């Protein structure tokens, strides 16, 4: 296995790195590259949205009426505050106050859970109305012909985003576990920062999703 050694500041440095700062910079660079792949993956959905909205504007207009923009706005606020507390948790790890950082991480986790709960209500409300995706679509009196297309896009976008929120929550739990074990110090906290970057990306995607899906006119 790749051996790691402890350098003079007490940081664990893996064999292929000469020192801790090179290791941290590479780690962060790697996370940014991963975020690029996430952005490119979601780009497929955004392009599909843009193309179909320009071809069938009336479907999107009618479709968005079934969405409650208040729930969307609430979710946006929830995710923005979770981004704040995520950034603050890194701030406190830098300051060495691990306990406070732990609290902020817990709050971020809580916000993630809240987001999923709100999404759960939205989904059940729609499925109850028959607005289920694809050929399970039983909503009869849609004015436009292919209303199912709008909900196809809606479920794909929010579904994939939801999966990423859950993954983010699992990563935060993993970082909290390592924090409790005392693995992080003001000189070594790349993992917290990496998970933070991923969580901010999940928030970014929702920032774009909210106006596109909920505020169509």
């Amino acid at each position, binding site marked *: *296995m*790749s*051996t790691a050694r402890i350098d003079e500041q007490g940081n664990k440095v*893996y*064999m*292929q*790195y*000469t020192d801790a700062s*090179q290791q941290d*910079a*590479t780690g962060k*660079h*790697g996370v940014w*590259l*991963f975020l*690029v*792949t*996430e952005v*490119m*993956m*979601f*780009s*497929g*959905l955004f*392009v*599909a949205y843009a*193309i*179909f909205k320009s*071809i*069938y504007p009336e*479907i999107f207009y009618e479709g968005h009426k079934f969405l409650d923009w208040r729930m969307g706005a609430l979710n946006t606020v929830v995710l923005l505050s979770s981004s704040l507390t995520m950034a603050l948790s890194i701030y406190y790890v830098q300051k060495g106050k691990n306990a406070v950082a732990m609290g902020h991480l817990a709050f971020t986790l809580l916000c993630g859970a809240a987001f999923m709960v709100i999404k759960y209500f939205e989904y059940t409300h729609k499925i109850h109305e028959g607005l289920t*995706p*694809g*050929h*399970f679509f039983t909503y009869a009196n849609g004015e436009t*012909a*292919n209303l*199912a*297309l709008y909900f*196809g*896009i809606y*479920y*794909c976008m929010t579904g*994939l985003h939801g999966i990423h929120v859950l993954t983010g929550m699992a990563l935060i739990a993993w970082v909290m576990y390592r924090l409790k074990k005392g693995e992080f110090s003001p000189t070594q906290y790349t993992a917290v920062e990496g998970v933070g970057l991923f969580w901010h990306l999940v928030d970014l995607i929702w920032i774009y999703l909210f106006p596109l899906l909920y505020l169509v006119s």
Partner: protein
Amino acid sequence: MGHAHVEGSNYLNHEKGLWSWLTTLDHKRIGILYFISVMFFFLIGGLFALLIRLELMEPGQQYISADFYNQVMTLHGSIMVFMVIIPGIPAFLGNFFLPIMIGAKDVAFPKLNLLSWYCLICGAGIAVSALFAGGIDTGWTFYTPYSIKTSTAVIVFVLGAFVMGFSSILTGLNFIATTHKLRAPGMTMNRMPLFVWALYSTAIIQVLATPVLAITLLLLVAERALGIGFFDASLGGDPVLFQHFFWFYSHPAVYIMILPALGVISELIAAFSRKTIFGYTAIAYSSVAIAAVSFFVWGHHMFVSGQSELAGAIFSGITMLVGVPTAIKLFNWVATMYKGSIRLDSPMLYAIGFMFLFTIGGVTGVMLATMAIDVHLHDTYFVVAHFHYVMVGGTLMAIMGGIYYWFPKMFGYMYSETLARLSWVFIFMGFNITFFPQFILGTQGMPRRYHDYIPEYAWLNKVSTFGSWFIFAGFVIGLISIILAFRKKEKAPMNPWGAKTLEWTIQSPPIHDNFEKIPTVNGGPYEYR
């Protein structure tokens, strides 16, 4: 730095046992794991190719039915693309030599590197399990609405390809991080070997384009499972949109396949002409230029698929731009050989074979990029011949050349030169006999993916099938030459070819940590004075 280095120990005998291989984090061992899996998949894909050629020897149905032929054609395409030629050079030769060539002890994220190999193996496992769930007959492009309507196991196979996509993303991510952050002191970007430049440009494409394939395949699964209607005309979607999504990944993917091969050929030409490469910056930056422009040209696959005339003109024009850096590389290689001291060892033979076949592949590519000609030649055997000239004549020749060039360094043994040259003769001759007639078949209008054809095409198809047996013989001889090398165990010197890049300054096979002390680099990679 690291444990004391025991004399005679290297990365192969550093740890023993299968478990040490399956959980290794050493980039060299992961390269060997990829070598074995890619060669295994290549054998399967090759057998399917032989089966196709056998069926097409004569008109009418000889050995396999139309449905079975469609499955064999799809499997040949998918296995060769996803499991052989995309991971081929980057994950095998790239994994092994990129860290050594830039003076690093390992790639930036060893654990991700091992995960990338497991993604390939698990993805391949899922894809192969599709065979037992009804097989797959959509062609490697999965065009909708056929891939939605067919009753074969498309979802299982597509999920397999989805998982294999992560193998490519993780390799690309690793290479970009390693190239940026782990270079030895003194190794500036302009002192990196050209193989590293090629892998770097490939990594950019792998990271930027493969996620789009991931979302396209997910949408295809959602389309089949839920019928969301993105790509299904009857539900308001647009099949041509699927082609846009698919080719946005797949054209950069063909550059993932060829760019590493261009990198290997730069190394071989410089080493076997004992001359510093001509136009280093031109070749290095043309790799990056090809990687960048490759994202703007995908529409040349869709001239006759209902794409608008304006979009077709833009795509055709930009495709012509991609031809220029490729031509630059070829001319620079020939200029390198001017006033060199050339030795025709087997790697050099493969490099020259590459240049011969890749030039034909390149110029026929320009023909297909021309709109009026593509209307006639699209989806005919002209296209089949073009991409085989570029993929088999290009990347596979470069893989064989790379294996022979670095074999002494990887395993410490010399291979038998005569057998290697014999395999070259068979492959080169067999290749031309197989695929040049297909150019003519294409101009005469024989469509692609035909299980049966009209009698006018019979004679050229028969010739093409003869050629395919020579190619198979060539690769078998190549395999034998490698197996014999392991049996004879003839010790190889540290630098059999007198090359100047970093991997030839360490013992062969290299030690676990590559370098006892990280070297400081003060010259270019090809300082043949």
